[in-house]
C-alpha cells in the first residue's frame, strides 16, 4: 500500500514531502496496528488535524468493511455448496504454509542482536509450552529489551 500512498500523496497532490512521508512511515511501523492504517491516520492528521485523521482512517477501512461483509454474505449462501466447502478446506494447508513462511522470512530482519536470539528462543519455548500467554510474552520481551538497553 505504501507505493500507492507515495504516488497519490507526494507525487500527484504534493501534500507532503518525501522526508515527511518517511518520518510517518517509520513511526507507523513501530506503533501497534497495520502500517497502512497508521500511515493513513498520520497523513490525515498532518493534512487536516483530528478530522483529517478520522476521515482518512475511516476511508482506508471502508473498502475492507464492504468487501468482507459481501464476502461473509456470499460464504453464508454457499454454506451447503460442497465445492465451496471443499475449496475452503483445501486452503487450510496453504494458509498454514503462508503463516509459517511469513514468520520465517521476517526472521532475519527481526532477529538482529544477540539478545534477539534469546528473546526469540524464550518466546518460542514459552508459547509452545503454553507457560505464558502471548500478551505477556510480547510485553515481557519488549520490557526486557528496554531494560537491557539501560544497562
Amino acid at each position: 500500500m505504501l507505493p500507492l500512498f507515495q504516488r497519490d500523496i507526494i507525487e500527484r497532490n504534493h501534500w507532503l514531502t518525501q522526508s515527511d512521508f518517511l518520518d510517518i512511515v517509520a513511526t507507523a511501523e513501530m506503533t501497534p496496528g497495520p502500517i497502512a492504517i497508521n500511515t493513513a491516520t498520520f497523513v490525515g492528521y498532518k493534512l487536516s488535524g483530528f478530522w483529517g485523521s478520522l476521515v482518512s482512517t475511516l476511508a482506508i477501512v471502508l473498502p475492507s468493511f464492504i468487501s468482507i461483509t459481501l464476502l461473509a454474505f456470499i460464504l453464508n449462501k454457499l454454506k451447503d455448496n460442497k465445492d465451496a466447502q471443499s475449496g475452503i478446506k483445501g486452503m487450510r494447508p496453504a494458509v498454514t504454509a503462508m503463516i509459517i513462511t511469513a514468520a520465517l522470512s521476517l526472521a532475519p530482519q527481526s532477529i538482529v542482536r544477540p539478545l534477539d536470539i534469546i528473546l526469540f528462543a524464550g518466546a518460542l519455548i514459552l508459547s509452545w509450552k503454553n507457560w505464558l500467554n502471548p500478551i505477556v510474552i510480547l510485553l515481557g520481551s519488549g520490557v526486557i529489551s528496554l531494560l537491557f538497553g539501560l544497562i
Partner: protein
Amino acid sequence: MLWSLFINCFKVGALTIGGGYAMLPVMKEVFVTKKKWVSEEDFVDMMAVIQTVPGAIAVNSSIYLGRKIAGIPGAIAATIGSVLPSFLIILLIASTLTSWYQNPYIANFFAGVRPAVIALILVAGVKLGKGILHSKIQIALTLLFALLALVLKFHPVVLLVMGAAIGILLSRISEKSNASEKKGRDQ
C-alpha cells in the same frame, strides 16, 4: 456481547505490533482459546478467505469475526475496537510532533517485541497446522506450499487459489471413487 467484542478487539489491536500476521497469536489467544468464540478450524478458514479481498489482514479478520459473532453491529464494534488503539496512539504522536521512533527507549522496546512476535507467529502457525491438518496429503501439501512461498516466492493469493482448486479436485475424485465403489458392491 458488543462491548466484550469491542474490548477484546481493542486488546488485539493494541498488541498487533509489526505488520502482516502479527495479530494472529493474540487474536487466536483471545478468540479461540480464551473466549472460545470460534473454533480453530473456523479461525484458519477465516484467515484463508479474508486474504482473498483487499485490506490489511488485521482489520479484515476483526471485521469478519465481528460479523460472524454478532452480525453487522458486531463487525462495526470489532472494527472500531481494533483500529482505535493505533488511531489514538498516532494522534498522540502526531500532535506532539516528537520523532518518537528516534527515542532510544521506545526503539529498544519495539526491537525486543519483534523477535517475540516472530516466535509467536511460528508457534501459532504450527499449532494451527497440528490442529487442522490430519491426512498425510494435507501435510505434504503444506510443505509444498511452504516451498513455493519461500523459494519461488509465490504470491499468497496464488497459493490460496491452488489450495482451493486442489481441495475441490480431491473431493470430487473421492466422491467419484466412492460412487463407483458403491456401484461395484451393488453389482
